[in-house]
């Protein structure tokens, strides 16, 4: 396990553990305050399993009033609070602190209202992303953002991280599909931002809260837009003799005015690994493989598929298959979705990075990654949400070998720095959390970061809500850990990651 500097432990708080537990038991149902180490253990980490820390206490509030009272109490007594949804985050956003009260929102698990007239769903935050779609699909609707962990991740966590997914190219990330939230601030203030109307007036606090990684408030209710399910969905599986050809094809498809629902590229290493693992029928001789999916009405999808076919051929595609049935389409995706476990077979451990780059820089960045792979002597496989430039290199290493882990972390940091250098971003959808915290100064200068911290302090003057996350503690760009998987076992092995 890697070590990471966290905010200084407040020994006065540590010594008052029993008193704090007692006080909290006076605020909420006493069985919802956990203090025994055996009860705390399940909360010691989230999806970023390289880091573990037991919290001081865990509270499981059941109502917004309870959330408010707990925060107010903690604010007045200077106790740190870390909010947590389903705990599937990949950047350590809900990793506990030794002296914190971990606020587990698991009991907020009900859908409050389905409103077809306004095409929205009002829900408690710990309902899973997929459960929203399940609740409305019989009427032909769905919730568009689809992070790969959607069977397990909570909608409140999606808001906190501004989660994306394969389909965010066409439908946007969480922030573009959100109508309103109810939030409790660190001082206990309960307020609503947005609602069922399309816009709210005044400063866009809804936009500010979305993706703020639990640093500004605790989300207690979420209103999301739902969309009519597309009539037809078709995908094409295209092989290319070079990454450059694949990259050019992506750029041209977009420039031609086709906005696919999803567009994925895998490099040869990953194509081979996933094909061996899932028997997806991928063209393993291709240097790059692309899955492109369109949705809409029949004529619309057909028109786009034909255009794609022409563009792919123009860009030297070596193979091209169009899904003839929904089963075949899902088979195309099955391999892609098995990309992570497939890497788990190739090496004892792998680390998943999450950089964002301009689409046109794909070939350049992949060449750099391959150069770094040689430099660090660690194999790497690349998956890429090509349509929106979100790159997920998977670095393979052996965590039992300290040197290998160190090299892997350095390698990962080099990739992210390069992403920023070519005009991209440190994180496209996994969030900064603790994972990329010390790299923030690659993307921002002191003034930029100071402005963000001033906002934090305006809403949480004592920096008690999820401290130590997102913003650097060290004044240097230290290289720290990434999504670390040991022996093919992620924290939640059943959740697809892609």
């Amino acid at each position: 396990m890697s070590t990471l500097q966290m905010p200084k432990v407040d020994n006065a708080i540590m010594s008052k553990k029993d008193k704090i537990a007692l006080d909290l038991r006076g605020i909420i149902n006493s069985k919802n305050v956990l203090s025994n180490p055996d009860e705390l253990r399940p909360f010691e980490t989230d999806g970023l399993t390289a880091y573990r820390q037991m919290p001081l206490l865990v509270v499981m509030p059941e109502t917004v009033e309870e959330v408010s009272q707990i925060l107010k109490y903690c604010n007045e007594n200077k106790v740190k609070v870390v909010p947590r949804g389903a705990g599937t985050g990949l950047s350590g956003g809900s990793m506990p602190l030794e002296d914190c009260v971990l606020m587990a929102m698991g009991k907020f698990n009900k859908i409050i209202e389905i409103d077809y007239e306004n095409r929205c769903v009002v829900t408690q935050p710990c309902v899973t992303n997929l459960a929203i779609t399940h609740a409305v699909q019989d009427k032909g609707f769905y919730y568009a953002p689809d992070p790969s962990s959607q069977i397990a991740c909570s909608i409140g966590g999606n808001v906190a991280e501004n989660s994306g997914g394969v389909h965010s190219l066409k439908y946007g990330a969480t922030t573009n599909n959100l109508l309103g939230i109810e939030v409790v601030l660190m001082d206990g203030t309960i307020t609503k931002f947005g609602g069922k109307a399309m816009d709210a007036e005044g400063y866009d606090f809804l936009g500010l809260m979305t993706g703020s990684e639990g640093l500004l408030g605790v989300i207690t209710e979420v209103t999301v837009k739902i969309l009519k399910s597309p009539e037809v969905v078709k995908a094409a599986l295209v092989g290319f003799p070079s990454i450059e050809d694949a990259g050019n094809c992506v750029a041209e498809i977009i420039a031609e005015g086709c906005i696919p629902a999803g567009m994925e590229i895998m490099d040869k290493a990953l194509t081979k690994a996933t094909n061996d693992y899932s028997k997806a029928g991928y063209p393993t001789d291709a240097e790059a493989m692309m899955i492109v999916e369109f949705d809409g009405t029949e004529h619309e999808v057909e028109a786009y598929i034909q255009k794609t076919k022409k563009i792919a051929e123009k860009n030297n595609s070596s193979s091209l298959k169009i899904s003839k049935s929904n089963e075949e389409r899902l088979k195309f995706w099955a391999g892609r979705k098995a990309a992570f476990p497939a890497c788990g077979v190739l090496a004892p451990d792998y680390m998943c990075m999450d950089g964002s780059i301009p689409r046109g820089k794909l070939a350049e960045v992949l060449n750099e990654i391959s150069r770094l792979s040689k430099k660090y002597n660690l194999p790497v496989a690349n998956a890429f949400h090509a349509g929106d430039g979100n790159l997920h290199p998977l670095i393979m290493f052996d965590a039992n070998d300290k040197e290998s882990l160190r090299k892997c972390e350095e390698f990962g940091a080099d990739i992210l720095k390069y992403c920023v250098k070519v005009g991209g971003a440190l994180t496209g959808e996994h969030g900064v959390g603790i994972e990329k915290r010390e790299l923030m100064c690659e993307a921002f200068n002191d003034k930029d970061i100071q402005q963000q911290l001033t906002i934090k302090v305006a809403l949480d003057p004592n920096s008690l809500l999820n401290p130590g996350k997102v913003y650097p503690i060290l004044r240097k760009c230290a290289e720290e850990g990434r999504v670390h998987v040991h022996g093919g076992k992620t924290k939640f092995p059943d959740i697809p990651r892609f």
Partner: protein
Amino acid sequence: MSMEEKQNSQTSLDFNQNIFKPTSREEIVEIVKTCYRKNIPLEINGLKSKSKIGRNFQSEKTLDLSDFKGIIDYKPEELYIKVKAGTPLKEIIEELDKNNQQLAFEPNDFGYLFSGESNSGSIGGVVSCNFAGSRRFKVGSVRDHILGFQGINGKGETIKSGGTVVKNVTGYDLSKLISGSFGTLTILTELSIKVLPKPETSKTLIIKNPHLKKALDFLGKALSSSTDPSGGVFYPDYFGKDFVLNDLTHDGGLTAVRIEGPTNSVDQRVNRLSKELGLLDQELSILDNEQSNIFWSRTKNLEVFKKLESNLLRIVLPISETLQVIQKLKSYDIKYFVDWGGSLIWAVFETLNAKILSDIKDIVKKHQGYITLIKIEDDLKASADIFTIDPIKYKISEKIKRSFDPKRIFNPGKMYTGI
């Protein structure tokens, strides 16, 4: 820059003038730093197309950003354009036209309303006001298209957030926060905006129908259908004559639904939609690409309110509430049209006073919506709240304002007293 040049540039600012018209970021920084030091409030303007929206406020100096313009970087294949904030929207649209691309959020042109002719303003103004056009329900608002920005905060520090890529969750999403902040948080200097390919074809299904209830029913069904419309409006009888086109001889009330995409699919979807809505041939007209574009451009430009003398209110509501709210508002002397598929009402009030305004606000608030006073008589403007806010959000807004602009020198009081 040598020491000597630095001193020259620092002294080049003539602080006796009342209007600053900077052409570089360095000049803006110098102006703001001086104002910060001397506690001098600044009114920030672009092309003044929307400067009448908002509260009246006192400012000693004006910062005119109309010369701070130009396209910095346009990458059609990366779907973004990076511009200086004072760049006229018109110039950006002309540049995008060359590559058959567009700003999908169709910002309103308030020029017709305030001055009788087009003035779509500067991009900085468009972002600061965050008023999106008819595609709102499909593509989002202006704020959903801002990838990143650079700005100057109230201390004269240059800050940035976001970038030029779509997927970016690094740090707080300040691009959202500055959208719709009416220049009260930062002086925008650079904006990176998402652009999208223009649809191959746009067609519009016009339903001849003067009844609001029926219109909202049509719009509701259309927006919930899988034909994927990108515009839905209702114009009552009195506005019908403004939309007479070759294929639209009907001059009464109308409901319009726009369908965009590849030509083949547009035809198919238009047919499907007219069947799904159970329309007879004589009830409808279909506008081809050219006429469809004229129709939606007139809507976006608020042309039915050209040189309006009376008061104009912008009311946003959950769709389910629109019918009831309009029925209640009809007890006043109003003319209105409905956009955003039923969620946005533009309403003209012939007479308006503090009492009526307060009653309307109560109605809209009760129905979970909000009102922005776009154009009201000067007497009333001095006393009325232009924007609606509750005490808790006011308190939070005050804190956020201070975190950007601690001495309240940017457009102080433009949104709310004390902010």
